[in-house]
């Protein structure tokens, strides 16, 4: 029994950041990298299942698509108890969109043939919320998104997932396995990876996969096949807010005035 957990190393902004000269992204100098917050929860969910099952029966494999710096985040996953870590990269993959990344992950899944895939709902930097679902689509697997509660016994042919919807409602769905679930924050309490644990995980190997290993060609990935591209990244001008002082009547009069101004009267 195997659970595959796709993870992403996300970028966070340092204060006082600057944009790249082409204005399509933040200058790399101002980015701090860390494991995507959602992935802490999806990995934890897999770890909980692994630890509940008899020892050695459940294998947790973390997979990430990204350059060498991603190893650091994969090590953190190993420190938390993942059995194996796989990093997929080829320079041709630079600029891939989330659907392409989903395809790459699906290719890894075909190789690994996991019983379940737990992805995060979204990444905190790009926030497309689509990689997990794209993986399911590429595999032709059922999926459940924004899972806030899960009942699943290792090896079972179905799982019950509670999906978080608007207004605090939950939708309980039964999904046939294998399936892709995208895990929501708060489903569990992610464990702490101690620095010693991370250091010790440095001794564990991180398996590397490239295009050829997955039966892909440079033409299948990268910016060239992306369905969308970034045109510009910028900080919008700050909105204006003003406190309206005075008696209720005066405040009302001022509001009417503002509305008229906006309507162009």
């Amino acid at each position, binding site marked *: 029994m195997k659970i595959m957990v796709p993870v992403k190393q996300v970028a966070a902004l*340092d*204060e*006082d950041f600057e944009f790249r000269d082409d204005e399509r992204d933040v200058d790399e100098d101002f980015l701090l990298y*860390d494991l995507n917050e959602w992935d802490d929860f999806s990995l934890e969910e897999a770890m909980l299942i692994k630890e509940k099952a008899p020892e050695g029966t459940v294998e947790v494999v973390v997979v990430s698509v990204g350059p060498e710096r991603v190893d650091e985040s994969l090590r953190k996953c190993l420190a938390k108890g993942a059995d194996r870590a796989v990093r997929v990269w080829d320079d041709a993959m630079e600029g891939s969109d989330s659907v392409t990344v989903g395809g790459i992950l699906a290719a890894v899944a075909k190789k690994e043939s996991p019983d379940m895939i737990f992805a995060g709902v979204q990444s905190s930097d790009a926030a497309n919320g689509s990689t997990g679902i794209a993986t399911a689509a590429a595999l032709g697997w059922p999926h459940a998104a924004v899972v806030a509660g899960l009942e699943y016994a290792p090896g079972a042919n179905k799982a019950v997932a509670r999906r978080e919807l608007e207004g605090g409602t939950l939708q309980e769905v039964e999904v046939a396995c294998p399936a892709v679930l995208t895990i929501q924050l708060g489903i569990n309490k992610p*464990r*702490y990876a*101690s*620095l*010693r*644990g991370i250091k010790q995980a440095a001794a564990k190997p991180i398996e590397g996969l490239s295009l050829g290993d997955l039966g892909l060609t440079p033409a299948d990935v990268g910016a060239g096949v992306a369905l969308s591209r970034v045109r510009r990244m910028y900080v919008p001008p700050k909105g204006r807010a003003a406190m309206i002082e005075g008696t209720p009547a005066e405040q009302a009069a001022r509001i009417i005035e503002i509305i008229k101004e906006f309507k162009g009267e």
Partner: protein
Amino acid sequence: MQITRVLFENFQPKAIYLFYAFGYAAIAVFAWGAYTQIRKYRRGQPDPSWGNLAARFVDMVKIMLTHRTLKRRDTAAGKAHALIFFSFLTLLVGTATITLEYDILKPLTGWQFWYGKFYLLFSLVLDFAGVGLIGGLLYMMYRRKWLKLPKLDYARPDREPGDPDYDRSGYRREDWAFLWSLILIGITGFVLEAARIVWLADRPAVWDVRWWSPVGAALAHAMQGAGLSAEGASALRGALWWFHGLLALTFIACIPYTKIKHIFTASASLMFRDPLAARRLPKIPEEQASAGYKTITDLTWKQLLHLDACTKCGRCHEACPANAVGAPLSPRDVILSLREFANKTMNSGKLPEAAELDIHGKGVGQVFMETLWSCRTCLACVEICPVAVEHVPIIVQMRRKLVEDGEMEPILQKTLQNIHKSGNSFGESKRKRAAWTKALPFTIKDARKEPVDLVWFVGDYASFDPRNQKVSQAFARLLHHVGVDFGLLFEGEINAGNDVRRVGEEGLYELLASGNIGTLQTCDFKTIVTTDPHSYNTIRNEYPEFGGQFEIQHYTSVVKQLLAEGRLKLNKKLDYRVTYHDPCHLGRYNKGFDAPREVLKMLGCELVEMGRNRDNSFCCGAGGGRIWIPDPVGKEKPSQNRMKEAGAIEGLQVFVVSCPKDLTMFEDALKTSGFEGRFVVRELIELIDECVEYEVWEEVQPQPEPEAAAP
């Protein structure tokens, strides 16, 4: 007839044999107990304190002879103990001398010295010792029974009434049994002596020298006055002789099994004490797979010995800030819990399975996670323990295990991750570390780029906390004004790691320490200075083990020196009525008690000490990473407890601190404990700042952005 000790007179040989049988039995029982205890200690891990034995022994003897540690903060008990100790020792030596002569020297060499003047003098000395022993014990009984000391009621803050190990009445019974058995041995000794004098009143070798045993003689006269005949005295002596002898032998047999063993364990504990305990926490060997203590056998032999050295005196219980505010921690109960656990699991021939040796949990003798996280590593317990029990290293080792298992408050977890990611506990950008210098009208040198005399290691709170930034700016002005050649590490500095290490995140500590050491080693400087006692402690005491040998001073001693040398001139004197709070890491940890007080004096302040000062300073509650964990709502905080103490000082104007965390904690507590407006909390630097007349800054050129100054 010669004047000598009456020994076995009128005893049938059978009776003497019987007595020897009892004697050997007692020795055998003692030896077995000693063996099992030593076997228990040997089941612990190696400890670096082994070695240097001669020097350690001399140190131990000094402490025992002066009773220095026992007299602290409880002079009466210390003196009573000294009385018991020296009397007991004298009586022991006296009795041992009889054995030496009668059982060893006489049978082997025929030599006897127990005669005449020597005997009489000895008799006199032993009588005094007997009085001392009984007197000391009587005070101890009075103290236990009538003084109603809270530290002796054994109430446990970490267990609820009804919990299986809440009840400590067994300890109370043992305390009383100990006192009674000793005092009965003493009293029966005197009555026995008196009965012998009455019985042998017609023998000049006894009667004529009776006043060499003054207590016995006085009692003998009283007995005669009460009409006791020589025959009656003989019968009394026979019965009492056996009672006294058997009681004493039982006492000896009981030593390894009861609190009496502290005679040995406390001495050994003192002998192996570590002067840097908790000031320098133990490294984890590279090859060790798991961090910290999980099982009782993870403790070192010395720590297992510490557990047995504790006499439950309660000084740590009284000094502990966590215990004072009702947190579920008493250092004494941690030690006693672990002792009970060790005795339950490690005294038999074979050790149980590892699962039964786990010291974490909610079971009997196990230590709760909440208990461990309540500790502020302020060192009050270690510092006051009269028998050198080192509680804090055990607590931190146990926390290391909790950290490895992620058993901590989520907010603490978040802080540790922040420190890992950004190098500071505020989660601020590394680039902003020196942002506080922007407000200064001069540029501070970058110690990474040019040589300086003094590298200022600023620390997180002094760098990022807005209130403390003002203090940092004041100190920078002061150094600049005096013309000290100083520089900063700017964004090269990361959290020093003192508190991270005390939380138990050793891996992160190693990363931080080696990071700072690496940066400092590339710089050219003479001394490090810091306003942060926490950074001061770890750089001074712990960095050397990671290859960082630096000279470091706390700013208080630097300023004291500048003032004394006349380099820093005070423009005016302050007439404030102040009190001074010793930061744990400057005071107790590193004995920096005097410099701040001398500076206050030079400033002209009237210093009124709080009751708990210097080594007994009361922690603000921020240590051991507790500044990152909110205290429970609705309960008193240690800082509020401290404010109340300061508030009792009449006419207090300023509560002076010399630690960034203290400033944060106490300014908050000032408000929440209702003393706002009555007095203010100030950093010592701010008081100095008031007295210095600075040059006019406007003439100085504007300073470039620190970002631009750094690579």
